[in-house]
């Protein structure tokens, strides 16, 4: 397969997944904003949402205040933000357009319809009027995109590169969503969660929102049949291989798809992905929490992004040349 074609398929999947996860991130905060004592911490939460995506600086250049309306605007429709949902869906379609010959008609029509509907929704100002409905729509389109890839595309190299894009992006995004708590508190100047009784309640609501944002609330109840604790939430989203958005599950997918496209340069990349997989596979949640979840997640992000960059160099269009 042409390197450029593989590259477009990889980024097509990454951008779609990123749009979905930005919508999920918005969900966490929008749900938190419904809590009674939200008003006091609103700015912190929204700053946290920007911090985990490393977008704070860019945001400050364009907006004078961190308000819910501004952050939503920035993360959904602002085309100057290359990670906004609108920019991601546009980039996904541009990548698809460049390789539409390598896509089935159904895949192309799904992506194109998403973009056409997006334009209508932006015209109707849906993201500002009803951000929850908008993020629901984004998630649905992303589900449809993945489904139509799995349901119609030949399982050849192109398919594996699209899957690699999906799971690399998802691993990155799940790690960031898990870390949102740390970022919100860091904004406050307090890296450790306070332990007063009122805070415990907020803590529950926060972790419940994290679970809901990655569609894991019911899963948690089924797996643990118990109260929600931060350690178990972390275990579910980091170490459970059967949880479709967990770090281990994503890395498992990266490793197996990588093996399918192996070429004579990719040995070292496979080794690093395999080492990351082994650490997650044999890891225990106590070890993860010992050095602190934030430190653990930061290291994980470095390693998964290293694998992503190496895939670009080994197979695709190297990032510096793109």
């Amino acid at each position, binding site marked *: *397969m*042409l*390197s*450029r*074609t*593989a590259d477009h398929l990889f980024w097509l999947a990454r951008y779609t997944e990123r749009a979905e996860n930005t919508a999920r991130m918005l969900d966490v905060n929008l749900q938190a904003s419904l809590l009674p004592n939200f008003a006091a911490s609103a700015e912190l939460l929204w700053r946290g949402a920007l911090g985990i995506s490393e977008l704070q600086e860019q945001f400050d250049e364009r907006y004078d205040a961190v308000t819910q309306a501004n952050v939503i605007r920035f993360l959904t429709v602002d085309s100057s933000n290359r990670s906004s949902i609108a920019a991601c869906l*546009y980039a996904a*379609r*541009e990548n698809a*357009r*460049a*390789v*539409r*010959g*390598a896509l089935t*008609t159904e895949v*192309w*029509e799904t992506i*194109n*319809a998403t973009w*056409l509907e997006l334009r209508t929704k932006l015209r109707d100002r849906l993201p500002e009027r009803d951000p929850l409905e908008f993020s629901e729509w984004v998630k649905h389109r992303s589900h449809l995109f993945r489904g139509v890839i799995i349901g119609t595309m030949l399982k050849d*190299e192109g398919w594996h*590169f699209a899957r690699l894009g999906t799971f690399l992006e998802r691993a990155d995004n799940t790690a960031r969503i898990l870390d949102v708590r740390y970022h919100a508190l860091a904004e406050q100047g307090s890296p450790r969660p306070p332990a007063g009784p009122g805070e415990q309640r907020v803590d529950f609501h926060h972790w419940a929102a994290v679970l809901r944002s990655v569609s894991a609330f019911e899963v948690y109840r089924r797996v643990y049949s118990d109260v929600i604790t931060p350690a178990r939430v972390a275990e579910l989203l980091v170490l459970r291989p059967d949880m479709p958005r967990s770090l281990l599950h994503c890395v498992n997918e990266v490793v197996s798809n990588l093996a399918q*496209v192996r*070429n*004579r340069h990719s040995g070292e990349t496979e080794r690093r992905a395999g080492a990351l997989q082994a650490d997650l596979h044999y890891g225990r949640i106590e070890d993860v929490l010992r050095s602190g979840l934030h430190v653990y997640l930061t290291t994980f992000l470095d390693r998964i992004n290293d694998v992503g960059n190496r895939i670009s160099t080994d*197979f*695709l269009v190297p990032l510096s040349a793109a």
Partner: protein
Amino acid sequence: MSAGEADPRAHYREFGAWLAGQSAESIAAKRAEADLIFHRVGITFAVHGDDQGTERLIPFDVIPRIIPVAEWRRIEAGLRQRVQALNLFLHDIYHEQSIVNAGVLPPEHVFCNEQYRPEMQGVDVPAGIYAHITGVDLIRAQDGSFQVLEDNLRVPSGVSYMLEDRNMMMRLFPELFARNKVAPVAHYPDLLLENLRAVAPEGVTDPTVVVLTPGMYNSAYFEHAFLAQQMGVELVEGKDLFVEDEQIFMRTTHGPRRVDVIYRRVDDGFLDPLAFHPSSQLGAPGLLAVYRAGRVALANAIGTGVADDKSVYPFVPEMIRFYLDEEPLLANVPTWQCRRPDHLSHVLAHLPELVVKEVHGAGGYGMLIGPAATRSELEEFRRRLRARPSNYIAQPTIALSTCPTFVDAGIAPRHIDLRPFVLSGKEISIVPGGLTRVALREGSLVVNSSQGGGTKDTWVLE
């Protein structure tokens, strides 16, 4: 279609009866559905200078253009003959130049023509085929016969619309295809692939074919992607290709892979920055050398433009006589060559009725449309014609035939032309019909999509 209001031509009768039985609402709904589907499928052309990805639909008309099969057979025979002669001509002028030596064609028409590529002199191309894909623009003259307005031998486009228009008609009106025997066109990509494989360099048994596109911002990008997909071959851009060891390769996820046949949708001048425009990023440096060494096939060949130039066009009937010793089956639109004194005096005497074109001009520049010209414009052209007669040709103002078409006010006649696509490989093949373009503005003769032209499905009907 109508000889008189009450008497549609016989081959439209069946369709006319069907259409009369449809309610205005149902047709309106079908037309809206067609627009929606074209948008969703993304059969659009890019609008230049808009980075937000604005794309326009080429308007599609649901009333087909119908050609009876007996008439199509005559057109088809004429096209075969014409394209065969054009390929022989191209081989000749890049080799012995016998047509020039015999005095049939003045040498300056060939050698002073910027479409003539001296790099191709003496180069042997596989099977001697230069124009693998030809789009011949036909019009129906007032006497009912089809005439050739233009031969397109460089990178003719539009075939994807021919195929998608048919798909659309079958989706919207399946019952029509059950009632009428419409000759199918869907095998075009198969024929194209077979032809491309047939011209691979000698010794290559399982050739790798690719489509070379200028990229997604080219106005015909949809067609390039469409054809690559339909043929199951890679769609490449210049940056995917590179030359090494006198071979051309594409970059793949498993390293370099040799390319044997390139269906290129990039103009000659941009194919190789080492040989032509040095700033072009659309081609591959060194491609020409590989091509000249016979280690890659290009379709169409480099240098075909010299055969569809306006100064050469008037000689195509002579070419047919010269190379094939046959009388042309399809006539040219009558053309006066102002370089000939007898033609010039006719042109000067009838200027208000004629269209005058520069021989190397394109896109309507440097053109005089007699009936629309002012007195001073006519005077100005008389002066230019006398000063440089060899720079001009003249043709009667063509009355394109019309076909009923949906417009805002209902159904009305609109002007049409026809572009069949002729494939030349081991043999010549043509799918029945072609692309019918229609000028949607009342009275307009311009069928180009950039100027409000649309398309129709074309039926060859038994």
